[in-house]
């Protein structure tokens, strides 16, 4: 059985009209409203330490086709319910959302294919290196800020409670979110990848990674401009 993170469970929960009203009111009230939006919680200066080498746990990770089927089934149920209530207009809207969710699902699969991650973490920065993709780098000292900005998209990162969140807003309005959590024994990372835009239902995919001991590379390397990485043999461990 696939474990769901609390956040993804919340994401699928239906909100009451009162809660929606409160959320909208808080949005309009501006930043003070946001402070009130979050229940007060004790400041926890200790962040989870993601540092280490991680390999994908295929048995626990979501299968994207199965997740897609589950999402489409849900959309179908919504469509049938709306079809009875509001006629063909909403039917076509739901079909459009269903079409987008397939594209989103394929994109989510594409961007979470990596099977290995190497994470380094200092007091001020978390760096997640993934084969075949750009590293996710979050300067945590600045709390929330954009870490990368280009005409093709903008990336934000920050801590949300004990989760490290990267949000990528692509140029055409598609949002990709990676949400990293560490389990209590520090041996497993779950990465929740969500892909959505304003016309589509979010597609969520959870990938689990288990810690493994990567062999020491045996070299000390320094980046240089003219000669690339210059490496020397690391001192032997006593």
């Amino acid at each position, binding site marked *: 059985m696939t474990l769901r993170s609390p956040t993804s469970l919340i994401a699928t929960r239906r*909100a009451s009209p009162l809660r929606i009203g409160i959320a909208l009111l808080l949005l309009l009230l501006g930043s003070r409203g946001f402070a009130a939006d979050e229940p007060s919680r004790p400041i926890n200066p200790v962040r989870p330490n993601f540092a280490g080498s991680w390999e994908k746990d295929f048995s626990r990770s979501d299968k994207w086709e199965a997740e897609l089927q589950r999402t489409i089934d849900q959309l179908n149920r919504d469509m049938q319910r709306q079809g009875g209530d509001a006629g063909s207009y909403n039917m076509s809207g739901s079909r459009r959302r269903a079409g987008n969710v397939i594209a989103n699902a394929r*994109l989510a699969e594409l961007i979470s294919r990596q099977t290995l991650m190497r994470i380094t973490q200092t007091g001020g920065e978390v760096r997640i290196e993934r084969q075949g993709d750009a590293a996710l780098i979050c300067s945590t000292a600045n709390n929330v800020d954009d870490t990368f900005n280009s005409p*093709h998209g903008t990336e934000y990162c920050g801590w949300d409670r004990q989760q490290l969140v990267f949000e990528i807003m692509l*140029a055409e309005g598609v949002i990709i979110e990676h949400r990293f959590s560490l389990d209590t024994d520090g041996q497993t990372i779950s990465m929740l990848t969500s892909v959505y835009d304003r016309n589509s239902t979010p597609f969520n995919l959870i990938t689990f990674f288990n810690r493994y001991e990567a062999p020491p590379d045996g070299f000390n390397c320094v*980046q240089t401009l003219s000669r690339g990485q210059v490496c020397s043999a690391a001192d032997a461990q006593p």
Partner: protein
Amino acid sequence: MQRGGCTAMRFAILRNLQSRASSISRLLLLSLLSLLLTACAQNQPAQVVGPPPVGDVQLNVATQTPSEERLLNIGVQVFDTRATDAQLTQAGAAIFAEIRRIETHYLPVVLRNTLVSSNQWGVVRVLPETDPSVDLLIQGTILRSDGANLSLLVRATDSSGKEWLNKTYVDTAGVVDYPDFVPSLRDRTTTNLEDPFQDLHAQIANDLLAVRESMDAQALLALAQLTQIKYAGDLSPEAFGSLLQPDAQGLLTLQRLPATNDPLLEHVAQIRARHHVFIDTIDEYYDALHHDLKPTYDVWRQYSHDQVVEEEESAASAAGSTLSGSGSFEALSQNYNRYKWAKIFEQEFVALASGFVSETAPAVLKLSENVNGLTGPVEEQYAQWRVLLRELFEVETAGLSQ
């Protein structure tokens, strides 16, 4: 609205989207998010429009050595830098700040070399601080520096305090300013490339020359005398301070000249000669630093130029992008790949910047080696030396001033 505030609001909205909203309210919230993002984007600082680039500039070179009074001594102070908010928050900000710090030492030497090669001036030295022994002091602030753009705010004042220049200079470099290949550090023939922003330095030199040429011989002689007395006043304010007074415009003027056979003046000349030997040594250190850095810096600037060009092309391609089947997987993956490669390119650029800093670190460290038995960074050594000379002057002239 502050940038950080926009970011925090964005996060809060997205959190609301995830935790509270049904599909209907999600649409409403996303609409609000779009409005907010538009507002935030409109609140980004506007691009500062600067003066036009200097263009092609021919350095005005003297074919014959100018007359003695025209050979003013120039000090080019190590430049200052002004980082923008964008630079402070960009990826690898600390690395780029270090590169900018290196440039504050490197670029004054390029200007110094340009002034020397014009053959229009006396001694031109790079100095860590303001110096009372020079006729003309040039101070610069680096406003922008990358492989494609250089913008300097340059201020030049003579020893009376008269401002010769206070102007922003801008130059751009294109493909033609760089070799077709990335120069090899091992191939000595490619390490002597002309600076891609040489026109900017030539323009500063020509502007300074124009001011000097507007002054007659008498004014130039008076300036040299004023410098001498100013230096003497710096050594001994009690003995020489009263000779210089500010006029109505705040410019220092000579009230009277000391007697030509004043023995104190002879000691001042001796101390000044020693001081010049010291600042010559410091200048040689900066020159050596420039020499050591130049091959690596040339490579760095070429990479930097390529990165700027890539960014511009990337922006242009994003603006002109009309993907068919928007919302399709092909369109999404194409968008993501563009984003991914732009990010990988930037991360590689930061790695190159880091390589530049680590490769030039030994040369920068050498600058702080001890000069004449003094210790600490070169700025501190300079300050120690000034104190030492004052004390020496007091000791040597103790009998004379009583």
